[in-house]
């Protein structure tokens, strides 16, 4: 049985297991655990609209960043351009598919899944569409969140850029600028998302089904 009532909500701290009854808070505020001080939950202003807007921006930038080359280099008249995916695929050409997976999965696949998954969930909540599979999508998006390494990939791009400038003439492609803004938009979107808000919104959509499950 779930103990969750609207004005005051029961929370178990994720880090220290302290059980706390928290009354509803004003938008823009955060509640920290009484015991260990880590964040319990927050009530962000425009908790659905703001992340949705940022995720839409991130989704567009994600496509641009993955279609256009990040960099083009010119050594002795020979030009070569690479997109983010190219940098993973080169490892397959070199006979190292495991390294290709290690670059492509956390660098492109998981961030892409999270961006488009969150877009689907937020879109469904914002327009009251009750689209199917929002819950399993949110479960997997939250489980995969630590494995999205776009920010690390960006640092890698910058380090590679510095190394290449010493060797050849380097031109930054549209993919590079899109990628920089993408990382910022993605970080802002995930920071403005409160899992509790999403789960409560999803809970309201199909309450009947949920209450039935709770009696187990």
């Amino acid at each position, binding site marked *: *049985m*779930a*103990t*969750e009532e609207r004005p005051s909500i029961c*929370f*178990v701290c*994720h*880090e*220290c*297991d*302290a*059980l706390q009854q928290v009354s509803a808070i004003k938008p823009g505020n955060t509640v920290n655990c*009484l*015991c*260990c*001080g*880590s964040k319990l*939950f927050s009530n962000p202003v425009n908790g659905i609209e703001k992340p949705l807007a940022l995720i839409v921006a991130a989704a567009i930038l994600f496509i641009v960043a993955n279609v256009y080359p*990040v*960099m083009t*280099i010119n*050594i*002795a008249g020979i030009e*070569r351009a*690479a997109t983010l995916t190219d*940098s993973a*695929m*080169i*490892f397959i050409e*070199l006979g*190292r598919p*495991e*390294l290709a997976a*290690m*670059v492509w999965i*956390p*660098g492109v696949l998981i961030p892409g899944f999270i961006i488009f998954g969150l877009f689907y969930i937020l879109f469904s909540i914002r327009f009251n569409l009750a689209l199917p599979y929002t*819950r399993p999508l*949110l*479960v997997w998006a939250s*489980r995969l969140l*630590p494995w999205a*390494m776009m920010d*690390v990939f960006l*640092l*890698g*791009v910058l*380090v*590679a850029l*510095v*190394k*290449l400038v010493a*060797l*050849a003439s380097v031109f930054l492609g549209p993919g590079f600028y899109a990628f920089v803004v993408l990382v910022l938009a993605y970080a802002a979107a995930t920071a403005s998302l409160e899992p*509790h808000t999403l*789960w409560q919104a999803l*809970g309201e959509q199909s309450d009947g089904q*949920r209450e039935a*499950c709770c009696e*187990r």
Partner: protein
Amino acid sequence: MSDNIVRAKDLGMAGCHTCGQVVRLMEKKHCVCPRCGSDVHYRKNNSITRAWALLISAFIMYIPANTEPIMYTTSLGQQGSDTIMSGVIYFLSHGDWPLALVIFSASVLVPIAKMITIAYILIMVQRGSARRQAENTRLYILAELMGKWSMVDVFVVALLAALIQLGTLTTIEPGPAGMAFASMVILTMFAAMALDPKLIWDQTE
């Protein structure tokens, strides 16, 4: 800590790891979360054993990650190899100390700091120590967040290899350290996930 703090476990309740739903477990060891369908349990299964196993494996991978070459460069028939430290020294000798610092922290300092942090928390939990619980929880959260940055070198080699393929002129190929780095990052991330921070708070004076 404060006397009026109640642990969910003592009341037969638990919070879902994925969605935070509070569930009444009572005598059951685990159940399916009514809200998101994940498995809900009081504490992660075999948390300490699993965390140690993953941590030791990660430490073993840390050694080849730093001693083996991360990439081989062939330029006009001449072969060269680069380890992480030779890359750091290259940047230092060219006066690029901010970049040297970034590479050194991400590849050498962050992984060892993360592994020491997890080992320290595991030892504190196993010794039943109830000291500095709030500080150790914060250390755990920090260790959980910073581990992925060690992947940066794998991405750098990928980009360099993709761009510098000029037939017989110059080629860059990945070395064995790449996979060692990637495995180390995955293993330390799994180790941090296996360690249940709630165990820190299960100890009382």
